[in-house]
């Protein structure tokens, strides 16, 4: 967890110390901050740009993130606030289980696409495959643990509480769970050094977060270099004869 948060903060700071020297908003772009918030918010909820790019990829990507969110939420509720399930009803708990299975299925689709789509296969790197395998393993082991693992959730809760309060107790000796938990830690530690940093990075993209105010407000470039120009005088001296044709002083009034 420390590596994860520390790493992410380091990443973001590393981006933030570098200036954005020019306006590169993708237009049509909003001219108010509210407009930018709306643009980013809609992008976050609907993955609109991806939808324009292609329906299948959009559905895969959007479902993947939606199910990821549901899965994370379920983890938090089950581990730290299990009482919520009894309030909202255990049907929701069951549904969350099916979501986990669907999650693994969607990941398989994305992996399948990476393998068979000629373009995507061309530019996929080892790290892309590593990550998708890692997430698939996490999802699969999670689903397995839940369906067949006979896991004592209370024990998991007290183990994690112990870790977070720095008073560790022994983890439940459940192999599927332990592997799942180990991979999860590996994953969290890997995130700051991988493309998963898009989870915060996307908000910083100037193409989407800049307002279209390039001509009405000053945008500062801290390293804006001075350039040397030929002054009018030496230009006018060089073309003296020609400029005289225009009129006195090179002016055609």
């Amino acid at each position, binding site marked *: 967890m420390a590596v994860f948060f520390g790493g992410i903060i380091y990443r973001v700071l590393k981006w933030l110390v570098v200036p954005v020297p020019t306006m*590169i908003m993708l237009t049509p772009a909003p001219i108010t901050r509210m407009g930018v918030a709306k643009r980013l918010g809609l992008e976050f909820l609907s993955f609109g*740009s991806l939808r*324009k790019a292609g329906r299948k*990829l959009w559905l895969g990507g959007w479902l993947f993130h939606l199910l990821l969110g549901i899965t994370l939420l379920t983890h938090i509720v089950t581990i730290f606030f299990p009482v919520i399930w009894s309030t909202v009803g255990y049907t929701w708990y069951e549904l969350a289980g099916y979501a986990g299975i669907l999650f693994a299925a969607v990941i398989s689709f994305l992996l399948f696409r990476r393998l068979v789509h000629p373009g995507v296969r061309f530019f996929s790197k080892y790290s892309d495959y590593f990550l998708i395998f890692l997430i698939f393993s996490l999802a699969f082991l999670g689903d397995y643990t839940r369906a067949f693992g006979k896991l004592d959730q209370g024990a998991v809760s007290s183990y994690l509480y112990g870790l977070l309060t720095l008073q560790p107790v022994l983890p439940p000796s459940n192999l599927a769970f332990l592997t799942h938990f180990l991979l999860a830690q590996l994953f969290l530690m890997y995130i700051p050094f991988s493309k998963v940093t898009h989870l915060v990075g996307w908000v910083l993209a100037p193409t*989407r977060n800049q307002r279209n105010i390039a001509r009405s407000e000053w945008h500062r470039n801290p390293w804006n270099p001075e350039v040397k120009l030929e002054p009018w005088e030496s230009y006018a001296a060089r073309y003296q004869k020609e*400029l005289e044709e225009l009129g006195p002083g090179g*002016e*055609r009034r």
Partner: protein
Amino acid sequence: MKLDLTNPGQKYSLHATRKKDMETMGLPFPREWNRENFNLPPNWKEVALAKLDELRRKYRELQLFFDICVACGACADKCPFFIATEDPHNMPVARQELLRSVYRRYFTTAGRLFKGLAGGRELTEELIHDWYIYFYQCSQCRRCAVFCPYGIDTAVFTMAAREVMTAIGLTPRSLTESIAKCEVVGNHMGMQPAAMLNSISFAEEEIKEETGIEVHVPINKKGAEILFIAPSADFFGEPHWLTFKGYLKLFHQIGLDYTMSTYASEGGNFGTWLNYEHMKKINRKIMKEAERLGVKWILGGECGHMWRVLHAYMGTMNVNPEFLEEPISPITGTRFKNASYSKAVHVCEFTADLIRHQKLRLDHSKNDQYVVTFSDSCNPARFMGLIEEPRYILQNVCKNFVEIDPSVNRERTICCTAGGGLLSDETLELRLRAIKPKVDAIRETGANFLALICAIDKAVYPEYLKHYRIPVQVGGVHELVGNALVIM
């Protein structure tokens, strides 16, 4: 989707800059070299890596986009040059990867330790050859960025790679010839003051023959209210010329107090496509001239990348141009608040405002023979958001206006495929292929007149349409304004 693994893109490579132009422009490592033999300086690798390191510390977007791309492939089939060649390196993400893999290898811990396993690639001369080919097969049109879930912009990579290549003495002639002329003579065409005067006088004569009206164009006039800047192609290009006459008629009719300039006779800015320094050098001339002439604000003609610079970069590059005033239309009194800092107004904004206030007498019967359609240019659409103004003007000066399929127009436009320094014969075949989706869409509209607001568009579309045997006339928005305008 199909890939052609024989890399047909390799065929299209730009000619090298001549030694003397490298010297004129003060480019690093002036020497004789060509497309096959780069004749790189001995320390090229250190220079290149140092430049790349410098750039990632200067541009947040570069560092950010290096890190966050997940290689989902949303952009893969959106680039017109990929559609044209099926060359895998022309997929935007793969184009980025040519640079990103080098970043990974030399500037990340994993890359330094695990090299190829971590997606890193050695910087070799072979890779530099690929850079020179594929980063000059990107017109920086940013169509790919529209589809990227994070808005990753390949133009950021292209510009960075070109900065690095410039630093080790690799620049294509198609850019440097024009830049050198622009910095010395004042415009990309190398047109000297007398030639410019000739051209303008000729336009005045033609307008007199056609309408009987005498228009007068002030040049280098001190104390004029407005400095008018146009791409130099407008002074004689075909069909740019007709647009140019359109402006002159319009300015005459409304009695605008303006001037043109010989010193800053270029609105276009090929420096944009080479590096920041030369972009600023060319742009700065306009501001310097505006200051010398004592004008209040700047009006800019129809041009694509010129407006990318005037809109997005000029305010940043020229800090606080306080010798200028917030632009106010002298005819309608409209304050152009959108240009209150950098004080440059697009002629389409200006004219649309005139029409809205009914300050023009327009007779569209002169344009009734045309079914007009409008193709968005990448920079006005995706860098400025100037999408509605030209349409508003066209709907007021023409009776028949039809739209092109928005999947290749508006903010998703495929435009000329000749921007970014690709406007040269070496790439003609490539461009003819790349433009196919767009010309097909133009054919489908049934239009017989294609209106444009970009000088490069105007230069290349006649050739494209002829090649595909589509009987459509090409012209500017202000050409049609000029036709419809009743002048006295």
